[in-house]
Protein backbone atom coordinates (compact mmCIF):
# COMPACT_ATOMS: atom_id res chain seq x y z
CA UNK A 1 0.00 0.00 0.00
CA UNK A 2 2.61 2.65 0.87
CA UNK A 3 4.47 1.65 -2.28
CA UNK A 4 1.39 2.33 -4.41
CA UNK A 5 0.82 5.61 -2.70
CA UNK A 6 4.31 6.92 -3.39
CA UNK A 7 3.80 5.98 -7.01
CA UNK A 8 0.72 8.16 -7.14
CA UNK A 9 2.61 11.12 -5.71
CA UNK A 10 5.52 10.53 -8.05
CA UNK A 11 3.13 10.68 -11.01
CA UNK A 12 1.61 13.83 -9.67
CA UNK A 13 4.96 15.54 -9.36
CA UNK A 14 6.19 14.26 -12.72
CA UNK A 15 3.13 15.52 -14.59
CA UNK A 16 3.46 18.87 -12.89
CA UNK A 17 7.05 19.22 -14.09
CA UNK A 18 6.09 18.15 -17.59
CA UNK A 19 3.38 20.81 -17.74
CA UNK A 20 5.69 23.52 -16.47
CA UNK A 21 8.40 22.60 -18.93
CA UNK A 22 5.94 22.67 -21.85
CA UNK A 23 4.91 26.16 -20.82
CA UNK A 24 8.53 27.27 -20.56
CA UNK A 25 9.29 25.68 -23.92
CA UNK A 26 6.51 27.71 -25.56
CA UNK A 27 8.04 30.91 -24.23
CA UNK A 28 11.52 29.88 -25.33
CA UNK A 29 10.31 29.54 -28.91
CA UNK A 30 9.49 33.21 -29.32
CA UNK A 31 12.90 34.09 -27.87
CA UNK A 32 14.57 31.76 -30.37
CA UNK A 33 12.63 33.26 -33.27
CA UNK A 34 13.59 36.80 -32.29
CA UNK A 35 17.21 35.75 -31.81
CA UNK A 36 17.71 33.76 -35.03
CA UNK A 37 15.73 35.97 -37.40
CA UNK A 38 17.14 39.09 -35.73
CA UNK A 39 20.77 37.91 -35.90
CA UNK A 40 20.42 36.94 -39.54
CA UNK A 41 18.60 40.15 -40.43
CA UNK A 42 20.67 42.63 -38.47
CA UNK A 43 23.87 41.41 -40.09
CA UNK A 44 22.65 43.32 -43.16
CA UNK A 45 23.83 46.47 -41.46
CA UNK A 46 27.43 45.34 -41.76
CA UNK A 47 27.21 46.18 -45.45
CA UNK A 48 24.24 48.51 -45.72
CA UNK A 49 23.69 51.68 -43.71
CA UNK A 50 20.58 51.85 -41.55
CA UNK A 51 19.82 55.20 -43.12
CA UNK A 52 19.86 53.80 -46.64
CA UNK A 53 17.71 50.80 -45.76
CA UNK A 54 14.90 52.83 -44.24
CA UNK A 55 14.93 56.00 -46.34
CA UNK A 56 15.94 54.99 -49.86
CA UNK A 57 13.52 53.41 -52.30
CA UNK A 58 16.28 52.25 -54.64
CA UNK A 59 16.22 48.45 -54.47
CA UNK A 60 18.67 46.86 -56.87
CA UNK A 61 20.68 44.27 -54.94
CA UNK A 62 22.79 43.45 -58.00
CA UNK A 63 24.37 46.90 -57.86
CA UNK A 64 24.50 46.95 -54.07
CA UNK A 65 21.53 49.22 -53.43
CA UNK A 66 19.34 48.09 -50.58
CA UNK A 67 16.68 50.74 -49.99
CA UNK A 68 13.56 49.10 -48.56
CA UNK A 69 11.37 52.19 -48.31
CA UNK A 70 9.09 51.07 -51.18
CA UNK A 71 8.31 47.80 -49.42
CA UNK A 72 7.67 49.49 -46.10
CA UNK A 73 5.38 52.00 -47.81
CA UNK A 74 3.63 49.18 -49.65
CA UNK A 75 3.02 47.27 -46.44
CA UNK A 76 1.71 50.29 -44.57
CA UNK A 77 -0.41 51.41 -47.52
CA UNK A 78 -2.15 48.07 -48.06
CA UNK A 79 -2.74 47.68 -44.32
CA UNK A 80 -4.33 51.14 -44.09
CA UNK A 81 -6.61 50.48 -47.07
CA UNK A 82 -7.62 47.16 -45.53
CA UNK A 83 -8.47 48.78 -42.17
CA UNK A 84 -10.33 51.69 -43.77
CA UNK A 85 -12.49 49.29 -45.79
CA UNK A 86 -12.74 46.30 -43.48
CA UNK A 87 -12.79 48.09 -40.11
CA UNK A 88 -16.13 49.93 -40.48
CA UNK A 89 -17.82 46.99 -42.22
CA UNK A 90 -16.59 44.59 -39.57
CA UNK A 91 -17.62 46.90 -36.73
CA UNK A 92 -21.07 47.36 -38.29
CA UNK A 93 -21.36 43.58 -38.60
CA UNK A 94 -20.41 43.20 -34.94
CA UNK A 95 -22.95 45.79 -33.80
CA UNK A 96 -25.57 44.08 -35.93
CA UNK A 97 -24.76 40.67 -34.45
CA UNK A 98 -24.63 41.91 -30.85
CA UNK A 99 -27.62 44.27 -30.86
CA UNK A 100 -29.96 43.62 -33.75
CA UNK A 101 -29.75 40.22 -35.34
CA UNK A 102 -32.67 37.91 -34.60
CA UNK A 103 -31.46 34.48 -33.45
CA UNK A 104 -31.99 32.81 -36.81
CA UNK A 105 -29.87 35.43 -38.60
CA UNK A 106 -27.16 34.98 -35.99
CA UNK A 107 -27.31 31.24 -36.53
CA UNK A 108 -26.36 31.88 -40.16
CA UNK A 109 -23.85 34.70 -39.66
CA UNK A 110 -21.76 32.95 -37.00
CA UNK A 111 -20.75 29.94 -39.09
CA UNK A 112 -20.40 32.26 -42.09
CA UNK A 113 -17.77 34.38 -40.37
CA UNK A 114 -16.06 31.21 -39.12
CA UNK A 115 -15.90 30.03 -42.71
CA UNK A 116 -14.37 33.36 -43.75
CA UNK A 117 -11.70 32.82 -41.10
CA UNK A 118 -11.09 29.27 -42.27
CA UNK A 119 -10.49 30.03 -45.95
CA UNK A 120 -6.74 29.63 -46.62
CA UNK A 121 -4.89 32.77 -47.62
CA UNK A 122 -3.81 31.33 -50.99
CA UNK A 123 -7.47 30.90 -51.83
CA UNK A 124 -8.04 34.57 -51.02
CA UNK A 125 -5.14 35.34 -53.32
CA UNK A 126 -6.64 33.12 -56.00
CA UNK A 127 -9.96 34.98 -55.79
CA UNK A 128 -7.94 38.20 -55.81
CA UNK A 129 -6.30 37.28 -59.11
CA UNK A 130 -9.41 35.91 -60.76
CA UNK A 131 -11.90 38.55 -59.59
CA UNK A 132 -10.57 41.54 -57.64
CA UNK A 133 -7.74 42.48 -60.00
CA UNK A 134 -10.16 42.54 -62.94
CA UNK A 135 -12.49 44.72 -60.89
CA UNK A 136 -9.84 47.29 -59.97
CA UNK A 137 -8.61 47.34 -63.56
CA UNK A 138 -12.08 48.18 -64.86
CA UNK A 139 -12.92 50.64 -62.10
CA UNK A 140 -9.74 52.67 -62.43
CA UNK A 141 -8.78 52.12 -66.06
CA UNK A 142 -5.28 51.12 -64.96
CA UNK A 143 -3.25 48.89 -67.27
CA UNK A 144 -3.01 45.89 -64.94
CA UNK A 145 -5.23 46.34 -61.88
CA UNK A 146 -2.47 44.93 -59.67
CA UNK A 147 -1.43 47.12 -56.76
CA UNK A 148 -2.21 48.34 -53.27
CA UNK A 149 -5.94 48.81 -53.92
CA UNK A 150 -6.43 45.18 -55.00
CA UNK A 151 -4.34 43.94 -52.06
CA UNK A 152 -6.20 46.24 -49.68
CA UNK A 153 -9.59 44.92 -50.83
CA UNK A 154 -8.53 41.29 -50.44
CA UNK A 155 -7.06 42.03 -46.99
CA UNK A 156 -10.21 43.92 -45.97
CA UNK A 157 -12.22 40.73 -46.51
CA UNK A 158 -9.59 38.62 -44.74
CA UNK A 159 -9.65 40.72 -41.58
CA UNK A 160 -13.47 40.81 -41.35
CA UNK A 161 -13.78 37.74 -39.10
CA UNK A 162 -11.17 39.11 -36.66
CA UNK A 163 -12.87 42.50 -36.43
CA UNK A 164 -16.37 41.04 -36.21
CA UNK A 165 -15.80 38.38 -33.58
CA UNK A 166 -13.57 40.42 -31.25
CA UNK A 167 -15.74 43.55 -31.45
CA UNK A 168 -18.86 41.50 -30.88
CA UNK A 169 -17.28 39.94 -27.79
CA UNK A 170 -16.44 43.43 -26.52
CA UNK A 171 -20.01 44.63 -27.07
CA UNK A 172 -21.50 41.56 -25.40
CA UNK A 173 -19.25 41.91 -22.39
CA UNK A 174 -20.86 45.24 -21.48
CA UNK A 175 -23.23 45.17 -18.50
CA UNK A 176 -26.87 45.15 -19.62
CA UNK A 177 -27.55 48.14 -17.40
CA UNK A 178 -25.75 50.48 -19.83
CA UNK A 179 -28.25 49.74 -22.55
CA UNK A 180 -31.24 49.73 -20.22
CA UNK A 181 -30.32 53.09 -18.71
CA UNK A 182 -29.91 54.69 -22.13
CA UNK A 183 -33.14 53.28 -23.51
CA UNK A 184 -35.01 54.25 -20.34
CA UNK A 185 -33.88 57.82 -20.88
CA UNK A 186 -35.72 57.75 -24.18
CA UNK A 187 -32.75 57.28 -26.48
CA UNK A 188 -33.37 55.36 -29.69
CA UNK A 189 -31.52 52.12 -30.35
CA UNK A 190 -29.12 53.85 -32.73
CA UNK A 191 -28.39 56.62 -30.21
CA UNK A 192 -27.73 53.98 -27.59
CA UNK A 193 -25.35 52.13 -29.89
CA UNK A 194 -23.49 55.22 -31.01
CA UNK A 195 -23.31 57.20 -27.78
CA UNK A 196 -23.20 54.47 -25.14
CA UNK A 197 -22.38 50.97 -26.29
CA UNK A 198 -19.66 51.57 -28.88
CA UNK A 199 -17.78 54.13 -26.72
CA UNK A 200 -17.99 51.83 -23.70
CA UNK A 201 -16.68 48.88 -25.72
CA UNK A 202 -13.98 50.97 -27.39
CA UNK A 203 -10.96 49.32 -25.69
CA UNK A 204 -12.13 45.93 -26.98
CA UNK A 205 -12.90 47.34 -30.41
CA UNK A 206 -9.46 48.95 -30.51
CA UNK A 207 -7.93 45.56 -29.69
CA UNK A 208 -9.88 44.05 -32.58
CA UNK A 209 -8.61 46.71 -34.97
CA UNK A 210 -4.99 46.35 -33.83
CA UNK A 211 -5.05 42.55 -34.17
CA UNK A 212 -6.65 42.91 -37.59
CA UNK A 213 -3.84 45.27 -38.61
CA UNK A 214 -1.28 42.77 -37.34
CA UNK A 215 -2.89 40.11 -39.47
CA UNK A 216 -3.03 42.40 -42.52
CA UNK A 217 0.57 43.58 -42.37
CA UNK A 218 1.90 40.04 -41.94
CA UNK A 219 -0.28 38.47 -44.60
CA UNK A 220 1.86 37.09 -47.36
CA UNK A 221 0.37 34.80 -49.96
CA UNK A 222 -2.82 36.72 -50.75
CA UNK A 223 -0.93 40.00 -51.02
CA UNK A 224 1.89 38.57 -53.10
CA UNK A 225 -0.59 37.30 -55.68
CA UNK A 226 -2.31 40.66 -56.30
CA UNK A 227 0.28 43.37 -55.51
CA UNK A 228 2.07 43.19 -58.86
CA UNK A 229 5.53 42.50 -57.40
CA UNK A 230 7.47 45.41 -58.80
CA UNK A 231 10.09 46.76 -56.41
CA UNK A 232 9.08 50.36 -57.03
CA UNK A 233 7.66 53.01 -54.73
CA UNK A 234 3.86 52.89 -55.08
CA UNK A 235 3.07 55.85 -57.33
CA UNK A 236 -0.66 55.23 -57.19
CA UNK A 237 -3.14 52.82 -55.61
CA UNK A 238 -3.22 50.73 -58.78
CA UNK A 239 0.42 50.66 -59.83
CA UNK A 240 2.27 47.37 -59.32
CA UNK A 241 4.42 47.56 -56.20
CA UNK A 242 5.66 45.29 -53.41
CA UNK A 243 5.28 44.85 -49.69
CA UNK A 244 7.76 43.50 -47.14
CA UNK A 245 6.08 40.10 -47.19
CA UNK A 246 5.58 39.80 -50.94
CA UNK A 247 9.18 40.75 -51.63
CA UNK A 248 10.48 38.07 -49.27
CA UNK A 249 8.50 35.44 -51.15
CA UNK A 250 9.61 36.76 -54.53
CA UNK A 251 13.33 36.95 -53.85
CA UNK A 252 14.09 34.38 -51.16
CA UNK A 253 14.48 31.58 -53.69
CA UNK A 254 17.07 33.38 -55.82
CA UNK A 255 19.45 34.44 -53.08
CA UNK A 256 22.19 32.34 -51.49
CA UNK A 257 21.89 31.97 -47.72
CA UNK A 258 24.20 34.41 -45.93
CA UNK A 259 24.56 36.91 -48.75
CA UNK A 260 23.79 40.57 -48.06
CA UNK A 261 20.72 40.34 -50.26
CA UNK A 262 19.49 37.30 -48.35
CA UNK A 263 20.19 38.98 -45.02
CA UNK A 264 18.23 42.03 -46.14
CA UNK A 265 15.21 39.79 -46.69
CA UNK A 266 15.62 38.40 -43.18
CA UNK A 267 15.82 41.97 -41.95
CA UNK A 268 12.41 42.61 -43.55
CA UNK A 269 11.02 39.59 -41.71
CA UNK A 270 12.57 40.92 -38.50
CA UNK A 271 10.82 44.27 -39.05
CA UNK A 272 7.51 42.42 -39.43
CA UNK A 273 8.25 40.51 -36.23
CA UNK A 274 8.97 43.72 -34.32
CA UNK A 275 5.76 45.29 -35.65
CA UNK A 276 3.81 42.24 -34.45
CA UNK A 277 5.38 42.45 -30.99
CA UNK A 278 4.66 46.19 -30.73
CA UNK A 279 1.03 45.48 -31.65
CA UNK A 280 0.77 42.92 -28.84
CA UNK A 281 2.05 45.47 -26.36
CA UNK A 282 -0.49 48.00 -27.69
CA UNK A 283 -3.26 45.43 -27.28
CA UNK A 284 -2.18 44.77 -23.71
CA UNK A 285 -2.25 48.49 -22.92
CA UNK A 286 -5.66 48.84 -24.56
CA UNK A 287 -7.16 45.97 -22.60
CA UNK A 288 -5.60 47.16 -19.33
CA UNK A 289 -7.21 50.53 -19.96
CA UNK A 290 -10.48 48.72 -20.55
CA UNK A 291 -10.13 46.83 -17.27
CA UNK A 292 -9.59 50.03 -15.29
CA UNK A 293 -12.89 51.48 -16.53
Amino acid at each position, binding site marked *: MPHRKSWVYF*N*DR*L*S*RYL*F*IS*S*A*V*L*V*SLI*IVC*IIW*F*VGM*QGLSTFREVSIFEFFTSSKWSPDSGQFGALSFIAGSIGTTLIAILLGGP*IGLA*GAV*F*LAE*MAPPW*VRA*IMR*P*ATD*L*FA*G*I*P*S*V*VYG*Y*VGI*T*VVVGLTRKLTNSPTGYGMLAAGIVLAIMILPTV*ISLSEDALRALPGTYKEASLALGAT*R*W*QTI*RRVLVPAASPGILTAII*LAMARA*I*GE*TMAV*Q*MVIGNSPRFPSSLVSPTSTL*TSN*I*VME*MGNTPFGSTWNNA*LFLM*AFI*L*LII*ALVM*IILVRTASRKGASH
Partner: protein
Amino acid sequence: MKARQADRFATMMLWGVAVLILSLLVAFLIQILGRGLPFLTSDFFNGPDGVRGQLFNSFYILFLSLVFSMPVGLGAGIYMSEYAPKTKLTDIIRLSTESLATVPSIVFGLFGMIVFVNMLGLGFTILGGAATLALLNLPILVRVTEESLQAVPRSYREASLALGATMWQTIRKVILPTALPGLITGITLVAGRALGETAILIFTAGMNVSRKLFDINPFAAGETLAVHLFAAKSNPLPGTNADQIADGTAALLIIMVIVFNLFLTIPSRWLQKRLLGKNKV
Protein backbone atom coordinates in the same frame (compact mmCIF):
# COMPACT_ATOMS: atom_id res chain seq x y z
CA MET B 1 -38.51 62.88 -35.01
CA LYS B 2 -35.03 63.29 -36.44
CA ALA B 3 -33.65 60.80 -33.96
CA ARG B 4 -36.23 58.24 -34.95
CA GLN B 5 -35.45 58.70 -38.63
CA ALA B 6 -31.75 58.30 -37.92
CA ASP B 7 -32.55 55.16 -35.98
CA ARG B 8 -34.53 53.70 -38.86
CA PHE B 9 -31.81 54.67 -41.33
CA ALA B 10 -29.08 53.10 -39.16
CA THR B 11 -31.11 49.91 -38.77
CA MET B 12 -31.41 49.66 -42.52
CA MET B 13 -27.70 50.29 -43.00
CA LEU B 14 -26.69 47.64 -40.49
CA TRP B 15 -28.98 45.08 -42.11
CA GLY B 16 -27.41 46.11 -45.39
CA VAL B 17 -23.92 45.44 -44.04
CA ALA B 18 -25.00 42.02 -42.76
CA VAL B 19 -26.43 41.17 -46.19
CA LEU B 20 -23.21 42.43 -47.79
CA ILE B 21 -21.04 40.20 -45.60
CA LEU B 22 -23.17 37.14 -46.30
CA SER B 23 -23.37 37.79 -50.03
CA LEU B 24 -19.59 38.23 -50.14
CA LEU B 25 -19.23 34.75 -48.72
CA VAL B 26 -21.81 33.30 -51.10
CA ALA B 27 -20.08 35.00 -54.03
CA PHE B 28 -16.75 33.54 -52.86
CA LEU B 29 -18.16 30.02 -52.71
CA ILE B 30 -20.00 30.28 -56.03
CA GLN B 31 -16.94 31.73 -57.73
CA ILE B 32 -14.53 29.10 -56.43
CA LEU B 33 -16.75 26.04 -56.58
CA GLY B 34 -18.33 27.10 -59.87
CA ARG B 35 -14.97 27.39 -61.56
CA GLY B 36 -13.28 24.45 -59.92
CA LEU B 37 -15.84 21.68 -59.42
CA PRO B 38 -15.99 20.69 -63.11
CA PHE B 39 -12.25 19.92 -62.99
CA LEU B 40 -12.44 17.61 -59.99
CA THR B 41 -12.33 14.38 -61.98
CA SER B 42 -10.27 11.30 -61.24
CA ASP B 43 -7.78 12.56 -63.81
CA PHE B 44 -7.33 15.66 -61.64
CA PHE B 45 -6.07 13.42 -58.84
CA ASN B 46 -4.38 10.57 -60.70
CA GLY B 47 -3.43 12.09 -64.06
CA PRO B 48 0.11 13.13 -65.07
CA ASP B 49 -0.31 16.50 -63.34
CA GLY B 50 -2.51 14.95 -60.67
CA VAL B 51 -2.63 16.33 -57.18
CA ARG B 52 -2.96 13.11 -55.18
CA GLY B 53 0.63 13.52 -53.97
CA GLN B 54 -0.09 17.04 -52.79
CA LEU B 55 -3.32 15.94 -51.15
CA PHE B 56 -1.47 13.22 -49.28
CA ASN B 57 1.32 15.60 -48.28
CA SER B 58 -1.22 18.12 -46.94
CA PHE B 59 -2.63 15.60 -44.50
CA TYR B 60 0.71 13.99 -43.73
CA ILE B 61 2.32 17.32 -42.80
CA LEU B 62 -0.80 18.30 -40.85
CA PHE B 63 -0.67 15.01 -38.95
CA LEU B 64 3.02 15.34 -38.11
CA SER B 65 2.62 18.95 -37.05
CA LEU B 66 -0.17 17.96 -34.67
CA VAL B 67 1.97 15.14 -33.28
CA PHE B 68 4.72 17.66 -32.56
CA SER B 69 2.57 20.46 -31.20
CA MET B 70 -0.19 18.72 -29.27
CA PRO B 71 1.77 17.38 -26.29
CA VAL B 72 3.51 20.69 -25.69
CA GLY B 73 0.46 22.82 -26.48
CA LEU B 74 -1.88 20.81 -24.27
CA GLY B 75 0.72 20.63 -21.50
CA ALA B 76 1.30 24.36 -21.52
CA GLY B 77 -2.45 25.00 -21.65
CA ILE B 78 -3.04 22.70 -18.67
CA TYR B 79 -0.29 24.47 -16.76
CA MET B 80 -1.73 27.90 -17.51
CA SER B 81 -5.23 26.85 -16.51
CA GLU B 82 -4.64 24.57 -13.52
CA TYR B 83 -1.31 25.41 -11.90
CA ALA B 84 -0.11 28.84 -12.96
CA PRO B 85 0.27 31.00 -9.90
CA LYS B 86 0.14 34.75 -10.45
CA THR B 87 3.87 35.29 -10.72
CA LYS B 88 6.26 37.03 -13.05
CA LEU B 89 7.01 33.70 -14.74
CA THR B 90 3.40 32.99 -15.73
CA ASP B 91 3.06 36.59 -16.87
CA ILE B 92 6.02 36.11 -19.17
CA ILE B 93 4.64 32.81 -20.45
CA ARG B 94 1.30 34.46 -21.20
CA LEU B 95 2.94 37.37 -22.98
CA SER B 96 5.08 35.06 -25.10
CA THR B 97 2.12 32.88 -26.05
CA GLU B 98 0.22 35.97 -27.16
CA SER B 99 3.25 37.20 -29.09
CA LEU B 100 3.70 33.82 -30.74
CA ALA B 101 0.07 34.00 -31.87
CA THR B 102 0.64 37.27 -33.75
CA VAL B 103 3.94 36.32 -35.40
CA PRO B 104 3.27 36.48 -39.16
CA SER B 105 3.48 33.05 -40.73
CA ILE B 106 6.21 34.12 -43.13
CA VAL B 107 8.44 34.86 -40.13
CA PHE B 108 7.85 31.31 -38.90
CA GLY B 109 8.73 30.18 -42.40
CA LEU B 110 12.06 32.01 -42.40
CA PHE B 111 12.82 30.81 -38.87
CA GLY B 112 12.17 27.24 -39.97
CA MET B 113 14.39 27.82 -42.97
CA ILE B 114 17.29 28.96 -40.78
CA VAL B 115 16.93 26.09 -38.32
CA PHE B 116 15.88 23.09 -40.38
CA VAL B 117 16.99 23.86 -43.92
CA ASN B 118 20.32 25.52 -43.17
CA MET B 119 21.54 24.85 -39.63
CA LEU B 120 20.51 21.21 -39.50
CA GLY B 121 21.22 20.91 -43.21
CA LEU B 122 18.08 18.95 -43.97
CA GLY B 123 17.12 20.94 -47.04
CA PHE B 124 13.42 21.16 -47.89
CA THR B 125 11.73 18.33 -46.05
CA ILE B 126 8.33 17.26 -44.85
CA LEU B 127 9.83 16.95 -41.37
CA GLY B 128 11.08 20.54 -41.33
CA GLY B 129 7.78 21.78 -42.71
CA ALA B 130 5.77 19.91 -40.11
CA ALA B 131 8.01 21.03 -37.25
CA THR B 132 7.75 24.67 -38.31
CA LEU B 133 4.01 24.34 -38.81
CA ALA B 134 3.84 22.99 -35.26
CA LEU B 135 5.10 26.38 -34.03
CA LEU B 136 2.12 28.04 -35.71
CA ASN B 137 -0.26 25.59 -34.01
CA LEU B 138 1.24 25.97 -30.54
CA PRO B 139 -0.15 29.33 -29.34
CA ILE B 140 -3.67 28.50 -30.55
CA LEU B 141 -3.51 25.10 -28.86
CA VAL B 142 -2.38 26.67 -25.59
CA ARG B 143 -5.19 29.22 -25.67
CA VAL B 144 -7.88 26.75 -26.67
CA THR B 145 -6.79 24.27 -23.98
CA GLU B 146 -6.71 26.96 -21.33
CA GLU B 147 -10.14 28.25 -22.32
CA SER B 148 -11.84 24.86 -22.40
CA LEU B 149 -10.29 23.87 -19.07
CA GLN B 150 -11.36 27.13 -17.51
CA ALA B 151 -14.92 26.38 -18.59
CA VAL B 152 -14.99 23.34 -16.28
CA PRO B 153 -16.81 24.33 -13.09
CA ARG B 154 -14.67 24.89 -10.00
CA SER B 155 -16.81 22.52 -7.97
CA TYR B 156 -15.62 19.55 -10.07
CA ARG B 157 -12.01 20.21 -9.03
CA GLU B 158 -12.92 20.80 -5.42
CA ALA B 159 -14.98 17.62 -5.24
CA SER B 160 -12.18 15.54 -6.74
CA LEU B 161 -9.44 17.05 -4.59
CA ALA B 162 -11.60 16.74 -1.48
CA LEU B 163 -11.91 13.02 -2.15
CA GLY B 164 -8.14 12.84 -1.83
CA ALA B 165 -7.25 12.68 -5.51
CA THR B 166 -3.96 14.24 -6.54
CA MET B 167 -3.79 17.14 -8.99
CA TRP B 168 -2.79 14.78 -11.78
CA GLN B 169 -5.61 12.35 -11.04
CA THR B 170 -8.07 15.23 -11.01
CA ILE B 171 -6.82 16.53 -14.33
CA ARG B 172 -6.77 13.15 -16.00
CA LYS B 173 -10.01 11.70 -14.67
CA VAL B 174 -12.21 14.76 -14.14
CA ILE B 175 -11.08 17.90 -15.91
CA LEU B 176 -9.85 16.59 -19.25
CA PRO B 177 -12.90 14.37 -19.91
CA THR B 178 -15.25 17.24 -19.10
CA ALA B 179 -13.34 19.65 -21.32
CA LEU B 180 -13.09 17.16 -24.18
CA PRO B 181 -15.71 18.71 -26.52
CA GLY B 182 -14.00 22.10 -26.28
CA LEU B 183 -10.60 20.52 -26.84
CA ILE B 184 -11.78 18.68 -29.93
CA THR B 185 -13.29 21.86 -31.37
CA GLY B 186 -10.03 23.66 -30.71
CA ILE B 187 -7.88 20.99 -32.30
CA THR B 188 -10.10 20.93 -35.40
CA LEU B 189 -9.72 24.71 -35.58
CA VAL B 190 -5.95 24.37 -35.43
CA ALA B 191 -5.97 21.61 -38.02
CA GLY B 192 -8.12 23.59 -40.43
CA ARG B 193 -5.76 26.52 -40.21
CA ALA B 194 -2.65 24.39 -40.62
CA LEU B 195 -4.12 22.63 -43.64
CA GLY B 196 -4.31 25.86 -45.62
CA GLU B 197 -0.98 27.30 -44.52
CA THR B 198 1.33 28.23 -47.35
CA ALA B 199 3.94 30.82 -46.45
CA ILE B 200 5.59 28.54 -43.89
CA LEU B 201 5.75 25.50 -46.12
CA ILE B 202 7.20 27.21 -49.19
CA PHE B 203 10.37 27.89 -47.20
CA THR B 204 10.56 24.63 -45.28
CA ALA B 205 8.82 21.80 -47.14
CA GLY B 206 9.58 23.13 -50.60
CA MET B 207 7.65 22.99 -53.83
CA ASN B 208 8.42 19.49 -55.06
CA VAL B 209 6.31 16.42 -54.73
CA SER B 210 7.46 12.81 -54.58
CA ARG B 211 6.69 10.69 -57.59
CA LYS B 212 5.88 7.70 -55.42
CA LEU B 213 2.34 7.35 -54.16
CA PHE B 214 1.94 7.83 -50.40
CA ASP B 215 5.62 8.51 -49.84
CA ILE B 216 5.95 8.68 -46.07
CA ASN B 217 9.66 9.46 -46.07
CA PRO B 218 9.80 12.54 -43.81
CA PHE B 219 13.08 13.65 -45.36
CA ALA B 220 11.58 14.11 -48.80
CA ALA B 221 10.38 17.49 -49.99
CA GLY B 222 6.62 17.75 -49.73
CA GLU B 223 4.49 20.21 -51.63
CA THR B 224 1.00 20.58 -50.19
CA LEU B 225 -2.23 21.49 -51.95
CA ALA B 226 -2.12 25.11 -50.78
CA VAL B 227 1.47 25.51 -51.98
CA HIS B 228 0.45 23.85 -55.24
CA LEU B 229 -2.31 26.42 -55.77
CA PHE B 230 0.17 29.22 -55.14
CA ALA B 231 2.68 27.74 -57.58
CA ALA B 232 0.06 27.16 -60.27
CA LYS B 233 -1.28 30.70 -59.99
CA SER B 234 1.81 32.81 -59.41
CA ASN B 235 4.42 31.20 -61.64
CA PRO B 236 2.64 28.81 -63.97
CA LEU B 237 4.86 26.57 -66.07
CA PRO B 238 4.24 27.18 -69.74
CA GLY B 239 2.59 24.31 -71.57
CA THR B 240 0.65 22.99 -68.57
CA ASN B 241 -2.99 23.58 -67.87
CA ALA B 242 -2.04 25.56 -64.78
CA ASP B 243 -5.27 27.56 -64.71
CA GLN B 244 -7.40 24.45 -64.56
CA ILE B 245 -5.17 22.96 -61.88
CA ALA B 246 -5.49 26.18 -59.88
CA ASP B 247 -9.29 26.25 -60.25
CA GLY B 248 -9.61 22.62 -59.20
CA THR B 249 -7.17 22.95 -56.30
CA ALA B 250 -8.93 26.04 -54.95
CA ALA B 251 -12.27 24.19 -55.05
CA LEU B 252 -10.74 21.19 -53.31
CA LEU B 253 -9.28 23.40 -50.57
CA ILE B 254 -12.62 25.13 -50.02
CA ILE B 255 -14.38 21.78 -49.77
CA MET B 256 -11.83 20.69 -47.17
CA VAL B 257 -12.42 23.89 -45.20
CA ILE B 258 -16.19 23.38 -45.27
CA VAL B 259 -15.84 19.76 -44.15
CA PHE B 260 -13.57 20.85 -41.29
CA ASN B 261 -16.07 23.51 -40.26
CA LEU B 262 -18.80 20.90 -40.15
CA PHE B 263 -16.56 18.68 -38.05
CA LEU B 264 -16.06 21.67 -35.81
CA THR B 265 -19.71 21.97 -34.87
CA ILE B 266 -21.26 18.52 -35.15
CA PRO B 267 -19.11 16.16 -33.06
CA SER B 268 -18.57 18.65 -30.25
CA ARG B 269 -22.31 19.22 -29.99
CA TRP B 270 -22.93 15.47 -30.03
CA LEU B 271 -20.25 14.86 -27.41
CA GLN B 272 -21.57 17.61 -25.22
CA LYS B 273 -25.05 16.13 -25.33
CA ARG B 274 -23.71 12.68 -24.52
CA LEU B 275 -21.54 13.86 -21.66
CA LEU B 276 -24.22 16.10 -20.21
CA GLY B 277 -26.72 13.25 -20.48
CA LYS B 278 -24.36 10.99 -18.57
CA ASN B 279 -23.71 13.54 -15.86
CA LYS B 280 -27.40 14.10 -15.26
CA VAL B 281 -28.02 10.47 -14.30
